[in-house]
């Protein structure tokens, strides 16, 4: 009896938020099914009839990531306060070195290749940023009302964000967004943030209108903005992926073609297993299925919000906030890109898109959040 209880506690510690776990498992399962649907045809052709090639790989990553999550959820989250000291400089250095020594994929140095494994420092940077900012804010808890502290936090974030943003705009934007949300939550000066958002939006518009944006952004990034305005006009070049995604979404209709019935996965939609997987969900499961996925993610956000609000201490709360912000921004950005609500930029859909390091770091974050949720019950 005692041993059994102990075993149960090892995998599912008392007080762990079971709703979050259920949502994560469910979304991962949907992700794997959709991934199979999106990749089986091309895998069958490219990998000698093995239509499970990509799916098996992702299943392996997912199992590893779940293991990591359970392990992390067992570790007292306060350890991250100490680790932040080492993780932060590591993230900054990795972010800079990848710019020079990274493996070039599609003209962008974003990856470190170690043997058969490849690793994106940007994913590591996301985790580090959350941990670092939460530690800093906890450290300056009594002085959070001062602009000074906000500046320190912003500067600390900037050191991580800058190298990443120069290699990978979308990851940089996610990092900046996470930092922004965390600083906003910790601060009382709401008006400043509202102004900041307005000013940022205005400056982008002005920069675009005056042509300044063209000088700041790379040519390919500008082309993506033009393709955003009128994807059909660029349907053979920069708008290609967007247009193919829209075909998939539009042809889904209300109830979709049915699971496994996507036609856009037959090589029409590039990267269907990756950033554009949501459009395959739309095509196969229709508006009903796609909306359900969004609702599931929103439920996950609200569960995270519950953990953040009732966390045992401020550090735990800020960790949860950062993780919540990360998930929320990435989900919203991905779906916005797929539906051409914003310009095309490579953001994967958490738990569903194909990708090893992304799912691993994401699950570590969930593990941290789980540990925070465990502590709530223990305190009470």
């Amino acid at each position, binding site marked *: 009896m005692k041993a059994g209880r102990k075993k149960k506690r090892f995998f599912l510690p008392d007080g762990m938020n079971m709703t979050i776990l259920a949502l994560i498992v469910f979304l991962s399962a949907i992700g794997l099914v959709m991934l199979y649907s999106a990749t089986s*045809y091309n895998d069958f052709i490219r990998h000698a009839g093995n239509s499970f090639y990509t799916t098996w790989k992702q299943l392996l990553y997912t199992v590893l990531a779940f293991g990591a999550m359970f392990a992390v959820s067992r570790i007292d989250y306060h350890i991250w306060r100490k680790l932040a000291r080492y993780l932060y400089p590591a993230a900054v250095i990795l972010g800079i070195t990848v710019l020079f020594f990274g493996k070039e994929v599609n003209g962008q140095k974003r990856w470190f290749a170690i043997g058969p494994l490849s690793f994106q420092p940007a994913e590591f940077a996301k985790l580090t940023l959350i941990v670092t900012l939460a530690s800093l804010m906890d450290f300056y808890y009594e002085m959070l009302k001062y602009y000074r502290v906000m500046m320190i936090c912003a500067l600390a974030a900037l050191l991580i964000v800058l190298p990443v943003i120069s290699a990978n705009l979308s990851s940089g934007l996610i990092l900046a967004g996470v930092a922004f*949300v965390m600083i*906003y*939550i*910790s*601060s*009382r000066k*709401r008006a400043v943030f509202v102004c900041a958002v307005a000013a940022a939006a205005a400056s982008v518009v002005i920069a675009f209108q005056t042509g300044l944006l063209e000088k700041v952004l790379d040519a390919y990034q500008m082309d993506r903005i033009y393709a955003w305005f009128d994807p059909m006009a660029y349907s053979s070049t920069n708008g290609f992926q967007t247009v193919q995604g*829209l*075909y*998939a*979404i*539009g*042809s*889904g*209709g*209300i109830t979709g073609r049915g699971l496994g019935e996507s*036609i*856009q996965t*037959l*090589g*029409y939609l590039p990267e269907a297993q990756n950033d554009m997987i949501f459009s395959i969900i*739309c095509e196969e499961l*229709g*508006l009903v299925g*796609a*909306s359900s996925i*969004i*609702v599931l*993610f*929103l439920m996950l*956000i*609200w569960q*995270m*919000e519950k953990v*953040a*609000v009732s*966390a*045992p*201490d*401020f550090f735990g*709360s800020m960790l949860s*906030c950062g993780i*919540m*912000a990360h998930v*929320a921004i990435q*989900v*919203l950005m991905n*779906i*916005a890109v797929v*539906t051409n*609500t914003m310009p095309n930029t490579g953001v994967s859909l958490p738990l569903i898109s194909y990708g090893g390091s992304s799912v691993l770091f994401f699950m570590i974050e969930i593990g941290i959040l789980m540990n925070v949720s465990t502590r709530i019950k223990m305190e009470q």
Partner: protein
Amino acid sequence: MHWGRVYQKQNIVTAAIVVTVMGCVLIGRLAYLMIVCSDEYYALAEELHTRERRIKAARGAIYDCNGVLIATNRTVCTVSVIYNQMTDREEVIRVLCQELDLSEETVRKKVEKYSAREIIKTNIPKETGDRIRAYDLAGVKVDEDYKRYYPLGSLASKVLGFTGSDNQGIIGLEVSYESVLKGIDGRILTLTDAAGLEVDDAAEERVEPIAGNSLYLSLDVTIQTYAQQAAQKVMEKKNAKRVSVLILNPQNGEIYAMVNVPEFDLNAPFTLLQEDVSMTSEEKQDALNQMWRNHVISDTYEPGSTFKTITAAAALEEGVVTVTDSFHCPGYYIVEDRRIRCHKIAGHGAENFVQATMNSCNPVFIQVGLRLGIDRFYHYFEQFHLLSKTGIDLTGEAGTIMHRPERMGDVELATVSFGQSFQLTPLRLLTTVSSIINGGYSITPHFGVEVRSADGSSVHKLKYETGERVLSEEVSRQMREILELVVSEGGGIKGSIEGYRIGGKTATSEKLPRGTGKYISSFYAFAPADDPQVIGLITIDEPEGIYYGGTIAAPVMREIFDNILPYLGIETTGLEETPSAP
């Protein structure tokens, strides 16, 4: 440990609410894309995903009046290679070089080109296609296709016409019966992946083609062949520019033959008769159009003396002249200030109207025309449908070029009376002459008789306007008698055949501008003269040497009639029949 200020927890809730709102906006956006834009994107996606392959419908065949096949389809093959499906490229190159008689370089270039489908050669014979198919090479496709084929080559080329690359009619009957012959293409819709490969287990939507209808003509290959040979012979003998022959049934308008030599090869319609490499493409197109031109229906000419038939019929019908009226021809006739000469300068002297017609005497016909007057004469033009098109089932028929009545003076009237100063097509002339000698009713000349579905299950007879009375039966009879005399004793005597009652009229028209020595010699004849079953008109354009219609055109028609009258089953008159035994 108690932590947190109220505003921080409020901020967390705010952040979650903002995220929720944004999530809902995205659901709204999705709803817009997937409900409002759904049809549009679905259609675009469908267009992208499916490959439509057309299955050509077989074009309908064309038969002559005896069921002789004159236009049909031949199966030809197109050989193409699909890069992704080829396993042994060297073998493919070797086989294709050998079978298609192409250089290795050409084939190699196409075989090694990375493309979805590369066509190696089109229009190869079916036997070659079958041989290549027998090798069973992966990635080599042999598709069958139809190509129009004319078994009789150049026979009636300008009448039949030919088809273009899309199997659509370009000239002739192929154009005017396009909707009958065309058929409805079928199609196969297959789902393909982005590389253009067909998805194996996807359902195929197949719509079967419907073959075009068969067209049965009044054209008689035998008569057409006789006429074409005769025309060819006289063209060569007289070194003429061209010779046209038109033979039809004056009772119902069915055309038996329409010859325009030189004809061209329907199986190679884009090959000029005299190939000239220095031609620009524009010049070549002009030359082709000229070669394809059906002069019998598309070109007008001054009919000359053959038109006296119409003047005579109008005058007799109107009663301004009777067959016994006497005239005197001094060799000329003065109209206003003009002295119009007869072809016989010395004059025909005293003659009655019948003799005048046999002599083809211009002064007499001028007088008859003047007796009719402009208004009455014009009235008969209209009554004989001379001013409108015949309505033949061919495209490109030219209209008659005639003076307007208010612009017509006596001089014009005088010249029109013997067939000058206006133009019409040979077809128009012969159609009107037919209605004058057939008992006096109008006909519509035509080729198409019957349309049958490809399997013969349904037959549709084509109908034409006919039977409107344009001349009294009595005058028609008189005209037949006069015209029979023209052949038996008059200017058309070289057109007579012993044992047959033949009517006809000759003409020699000087081409415009006058004085260049260029003539069109013509002659029309019909038989039997008392009940015409067949009428033919020959026009010889720019003959060299002797150019009189009675001398050079009449013998040709005689030769044709000599062959076709027995063929048509027209019996010789017992009276003049040569005894079979001495």
